[in-house]
């Protein structure tokens, strides 16, 4: 593992520690952007199995805080194809464990690795999820025997997942330490949540309903309906512009 990867891993574990994962590092000073954290975790999880395990465990306990439309849009627009199977597998494991449908639309846009399509009767072509098995043929042979069916489907071999709920802080701790998550909890990670977070992250996405719909990866009609509710709640402002309507946060701190 290179020094650069180690530095990135350390920064990532600090963000997870802020969200209550039991990494023995000092937590990040601010509440992380959860969807971007998941994207970054998918990129680095191969280097550190505990990162994957803790992220999946966090999603199992607190997955409804994730703005699913925004995660889907980020996965589609920013996540490199190599990491799609990692995110897809993580969300699928959570879905299998607790039956949630919250991530179905994100899972749909994650593409399994090409090796799955290429594999014939056996899975010799399917690479391991974690780097520790790469270039270690004896370990890889064992992994090929023990890998879970869902990991084969995603094209990243891994043994059955062992979630670690005891290694997470409690819900009251999480919210007390990260009060901005209350908004996510109130909205249950639905489209309204994605709209507010997208506007906080990229105010230019509020140039019109069409631009906002594109940024959230949904139809203009869906955005309009969600904006009606957000406007009624006093969370967004819609203002007539030369072409259509611009949208901005009523309180820029609310979605921070």
């Amino acid at each position, binding site marked *: 593992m290179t020094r650069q990867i180690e530095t990135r891993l350390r920064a990532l574990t600090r963000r997870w520690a802020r969200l*209550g994962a039991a990494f*023995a590092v000092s937590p990040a000073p601010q509440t992380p952007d959860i969807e971007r954290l998941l994207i970054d975790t998918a990129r680095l999880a191969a280097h550190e*199995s505990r990162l994957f395990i803790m992220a999946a465990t966090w999603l199992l306990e607190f997955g409804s805080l994730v703005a699913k439309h925004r995660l889907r849009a980020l996965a589609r627009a920013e996540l490199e194809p190599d990491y799609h199977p990692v995110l897809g597998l993580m969300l699928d494991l959570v879905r299998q464990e607790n039956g949630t449908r919250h991530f179905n639309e994100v899972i749909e846009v994650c593409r399994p690795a090409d090796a799955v399509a290429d594999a014939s009767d056996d899975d010799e072509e399917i690479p391991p999820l974690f780097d*520790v098995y790469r270039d*270690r043929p*004896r*370990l890889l042979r*064992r992994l090929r025997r023990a890998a879970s069916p869902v990991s084969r489907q995603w094209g990243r071999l891994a043994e059955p997942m*062992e979630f670690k709920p005891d290694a*997470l802080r409690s819900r009251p701790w999480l919210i007390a330490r990260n009060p901005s998550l209350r908004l996510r909890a109130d909205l249950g990670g639905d489209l309204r949540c994605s709209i507010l977070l997208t506007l906080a992250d990229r105010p230019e996405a509020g140039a019109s309903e069409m631009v906002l719909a594109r940024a959230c990866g949904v139809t203009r009609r869906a955005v309009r309906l969600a904006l009606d509710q957000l406007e009624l709640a006093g969370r967004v402002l819609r203002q007539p512009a030369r072409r259509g309507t611009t949208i901005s946060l009523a309180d820029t701190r609310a979605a921070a």
Partner: protein
Amino acid sequence: MLDSGLIRAALEALARELGAGDSVVSAATVELLLVGGAGGLLAGRLAPHRVTSDCDVMVCVPEEAWPELERAAGRVAHRLGLSRRWLNRGPAGPYRDALPRGWEQRRSEVLRTGPLVIFVPGRVDFIAMKALANRAQDIEDLIALNTTADERAFVRHHLLHWPHDHWLNSQLREALATLDELEDDT
């Protein structure tokens, strides 16, 4: 969730709890062998990004002190906001056999507080347990430990002369294969 500071604080609170009572334990010394993540963190063998949620106790001497320890640990959990199972005999139990002969001489004392004396296994014993557990995270730990050829030879000898017939041969073979891979890494 525990880091090494909190593990120490919790064990010290446990010792105070035991010392306060009018009990068998308060009058005697109780030795605990901590394994797993907590043992590794206390010994300074594991990287700080290692997560651990509990203290796995593999050996408690005297054994009859355990029920009282467990009750006191429950009170500490409540006071410090820890998981109710922060001190447990969980997965460490079946792994007691995994300790190579002579582990008592190799263990290190990491904390002495009130009636409690806390030990962690020696490096080779820790390596043996990691090789037998053999999950992705255990292999990552083995790599991070930078095991020496002598240590691997010691553990290999232990596995090849395994005295416990209730363990699966496949588990032993796989642990040996992991050691072989570490050999090839060097």
